């Protein structure tokens, strides 16, 4: 990697493209970004991978830390783990044809995540039903599906960690199934297997999910939908144009997908729409999510059983790595549901049997999340707080961001912590950091 890139495990900053106008400063919900020497530089520990900086940057200086498009190696067995958001990127195309397009691109297997989302849905209903009598977890339960929400809670709202539904996420269920059933035979033959997560957000490279790679385990790679879209659309167009679609033999039910409800998962509210829960809510958007979490922390919404949070507007369809606009994608999903209808593929009894065996229990320890994404900064003492108040009085407080910090309060904190100096502030007669 070249020197001009500053990167975290989620996003990269290109210093050559950065114009230093600092719109990413204000967009960052964890205030992780500072401008140093007129170019964006960041405090790595606090990045939760939401991608808001990618979304807002006019210069396209910020990109996701996913892989580039020239990735498929002929010698490897490539398995695509497909987020249902991918289907919505191709209006008028059936999900199974999109998966076929991936086969034509060179993926040996395609795994449809909506199959596992359905499994998750069933387990969630069961957990909520039992929680009504056992009170194992406090109300309202918070959906664990959006990884950014979970990290945001660990970072900003640690008192709400017990509210996060302790059911394994669909991605984890999917990876487990693939590792159990599909991969061993390739490994026995001595072939190398690579798992590609095709998804709409830069978050899947979760350091808490990916332990150090063992020799027997497959490599795991995160791909943005926009990384593969240009190639994939060519294959999908061909399939659409063909009179007779070549039939592809799948071995497992989850290798293809034919129903309309698969694509629904990408919409805000798609997770709860088909769930058998009396009182649920769907919230989308970063600001709205933070606002609702603040309210839950103040004791509101205890009469609600389940809240689906997505930090992207309109849900995962609004993810930053998508190929088409979220409203077009939403319309495509709605048409698909109208045409093909909804319908579950899985038998409830089978899922309940798995539930009894503890197959859905999340083993992730909340305290581990706190240590990964919780506040890393040293806590402020009463003295330091008083210093901050004094600095605030000196610097007028117009939140102009010229100093390179997202707002005056954060700047004052940086000054007291010794990470910035007062001369960075224009209002104390200084030069600023963003002035060109």
């Amino acid at each position, binding site marked *: 990697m070249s020197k001009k890139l500053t990167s975290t495990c989620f996003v990269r900053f290109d210093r050559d493209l950065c114009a230093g106008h600092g719109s990413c400063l204000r967009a960052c919900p964890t205030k992780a970004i500072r401008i140093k020497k007129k170019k964006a530089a960041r405090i790595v520990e606090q990045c939760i991978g939401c991608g808001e900086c990618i979304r807002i940057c006019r210069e396209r200086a910020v990109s996701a830390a996913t892989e580039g498009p020239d990735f498929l190696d002929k010698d490897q067995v490539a398995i695509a783990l497909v987020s249902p958001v991918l289907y919505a990127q191709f209006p008028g195309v059936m999900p199974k044809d999109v998966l076929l397009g991936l086969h034509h691109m060179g993926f040996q297997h395609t795994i449809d995540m909506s199959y596992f989302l359905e499994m998750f849905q069933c387990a969630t209903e069961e957990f909520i039903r039992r929680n009504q009598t056992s009170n194992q977890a406090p109300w309202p339960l918070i959906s664990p599906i959006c990884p950014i929400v979970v990290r945001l809670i660990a970072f*900003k*709202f*640690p*008192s709400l960690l017990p509210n996060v539904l302790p059911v394994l996420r669909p991605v984890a269920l999917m990876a487990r199934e693939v590792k159990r059933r599909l991969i061993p035979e390739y490994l026995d033959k001595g072939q190398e297997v690579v798992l590609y997560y095709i998804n709409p957000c830069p978050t899947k490279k979760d350091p808490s999910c990916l332990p150090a790679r063992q020799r027997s385990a497959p490599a795991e790679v995160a791909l943005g939908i926009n990384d593969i879209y240009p190639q994939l659309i060519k294959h999908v167009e061909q399939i659409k144009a063909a009179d007779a679609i070549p039939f592809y033999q799948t071995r497992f039910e989850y290798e293809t997908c034919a129903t309309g409800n698969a694509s629904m998962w990408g919409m805000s509210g798609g997770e709860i729409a088909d769930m058998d829960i009396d009182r649920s809510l769907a919230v989308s958007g970063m600001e709205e999510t933070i606002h609702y979490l*603040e*309210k839950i*922390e*103040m*004791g*509101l919404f205890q009469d609600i059983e389940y809240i689906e949070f997505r930090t992207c507007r309109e849900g995962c369809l609004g993810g930053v790595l998508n190929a088409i606009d979220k409203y077009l994608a939403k319309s495509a999903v709605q048409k698909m549901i109208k045409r093909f209808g909804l319908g579950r593929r899985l038998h409830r009894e089978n899922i309940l049997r798995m539930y009894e065996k503890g197959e859905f229990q999340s083993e992730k320890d909340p305290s581990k999340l706190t240590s990964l994404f919780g*506040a890393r900064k040293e*806590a*402020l*003492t*009463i003295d330091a*707080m*008083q*210093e901050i*108040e*004094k*600095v605030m*009085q*000196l610097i007028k407080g117009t939140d102009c961001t010229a100093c390179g910090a997202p707002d005056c309060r954060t700047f004052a*904190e940086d*000054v*007291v912590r*010794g990470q910035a*100096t*007062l*001369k960075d502030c224009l209002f*104390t*007669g*200084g030069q600023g950091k963003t002035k060109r």
Partner: protein
Amino acid sequence: MLAISLDLTENANLPLIKVRLARLTAQSGNFKPMPQLKKSFHIKGRDFIRAGEASINIQNLLKSMDFDPRLIRRVAICGYESEMNVVMHGGDGTLSIEVDNDKLILEITDDGPGIEDIELAMQAGYSTANDNHREMGFGAGMGLPNMKKNSDQIQVESPPNDGTVVRMTFFIPDKGKSD
């Protein structure tokens, strides 16, 4: 106004500012060294849209000081309940937080009509909310009981027609001893 000139040619580091601030303090007499930190937030009566903002500010302040999340949550619940009481009944008010080494004190004052029967108001389910409040989902009569439940000490003063003051104390558990 602050009439000071900061010497910014050299690296304006913290000790320097401290010296200047100390001088400033001595000159103006505005800053008195206080053992604790106090922050106040204004609350506007009948402003249901912005209700809760003062508590959120207090939440954020406490979070930057890294208190136990459970303690912050208790303060947040009390802050919100008291804020809602003011917004619903009390006219204008102030919510303030005092941070000391061993305790937090949350205080709410308002210029409203006061509480007629404090003992009754402390009972769960007793409410003086009107239909309008209930339609918005408030007024379940859990305000003061919830504040009592979540704080370590509570003190309510409400002389007739002279506003209300509620003072809640939260003791900070010794870090070594907790859990």
